[in-house]
């Protein structure tokens, strides 16, 4: 199946462990094969990632309801607050970065993973997450700001 790695990467970042991620990708694949006719081939990756995303969120709501706390997309305060933000990540350790990403709220982590690890456009992220492009823009800004703040607090850099 094409885009299996992208599907797994998203599921793994949302679920937090290998076992649950594999379950989610299997469920999503069954749906993808069943509804393959709906995908008109315009953007197969975004289409598959949307299915994986929805499967993951359904799974999380059922099994880990506390992980799915919806965020307030209007709150932009932390973007203005630049005092406590790290401005260099040079030489940051992979484990530290991974832990910092995992500490982000689900929707922020999702936006950042799709953007920085999968190289998705804002339009694709908007399609996958089911939100307007403007929301994608603010989620990415806030996700980055939170990572910067986390690093500054830990004083690692």
């Amino acid at each position, binding site marked *: 199946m094409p885009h*299996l*790695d992208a599907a797994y990467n998203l599921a793994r970042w949302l679920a937090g462990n290998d076992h649950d991620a594999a379950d989610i990708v299997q469920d999503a694949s069954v749906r993808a*094969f069943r509804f393959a006719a709906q995908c008109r081939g315009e953007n197969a990756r975004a289409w598959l990632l949307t299915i994986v995303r929805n499967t993951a969120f359904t799974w999380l709501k059922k099994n880990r309801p506390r992980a799915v706390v919806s965020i307030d997309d209007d709150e932009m305060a932390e973007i203005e607050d630049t005092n406590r933000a790290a401005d260099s990540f040079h030489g940051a350790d992979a484990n530290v970065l991974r832990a910092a990403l995992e500490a982000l709220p689900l929707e922020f982590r999702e936006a950042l993973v799709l953007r920085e690890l999968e190289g998705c456009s804002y339009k694709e992220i908007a399609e996958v997450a089911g939100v307007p492009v403007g929301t994608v*823009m603010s989620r990415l800004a806030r996700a980055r700001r939170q990572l910067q703040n986390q690093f500054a607090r830990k004083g690692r850099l």
Partner: protein
Amino acid sequence: MNCADIRKLIHAWADDELDLVRSLEVEQHLKSCPACARERDAIQSLRDALRQNDLTFRAPDLLRMEIRKLAHADEPARDREDAPSGIQLWIWRLLAGGATAFAVLMIFLRLGISGREAMLDEAVSDHVRSLQANHLMDVASTDQHTVKPWFDGKLDFAPTVRDFAAQGFPLIGGRLDYLNGRTVAALVYGYKKHFINVFVWPSATATATAPVLETDRGYSVINFDADGFHYCIVSDAEGKALSELAGLIGR
């Protein structure tokens, strides 16, 4: 643009998602503002760290195999069990040939309309961005004699600028935007509580064309040519109001 405006746009700029005109404005600001330039470097540094540290997970081989099995289980069983006879084989070949010809035809049809669809999509995105980024206007004025000269020297054409306040569409201002592969004039009109963007650029055809109303993502879009200009009107106001404005402009 001030620093607060830049901070709202700098992520879209760093992600290469900003239109050309606003990108240039951000870059101009970054040259002269060390604080915003530091923010740009921080975003870049974070991006490098995320991409260089190989944080991507790859699907395990076991999962890959299971998915392959799923894909095969989905095919109808008879395709694999009965080997087709000679005649069946020929029928299949004929059908396959027909399907290929159909696919090629569809691709050509799509290519023909994709340019139009892309323009519609871009016009709506420009409209949405102009509201989101708080960048509706570069020149805010209800006076057509202020708005029109503002475009002088910024464009290679002089758009017609008229105020239709008496008819319910007050002129609010104008700005430059980028659409259909070129810099265009964007005139901003008000209508009740809605904003209307009117994108103007020199027309490709010398003749006037009738307004065509389309909708995209809940926005109404009207395209037409008049007096040597192409007009593209975008708003969340109802299509009827846009048609009315199109009538006023084309008069």
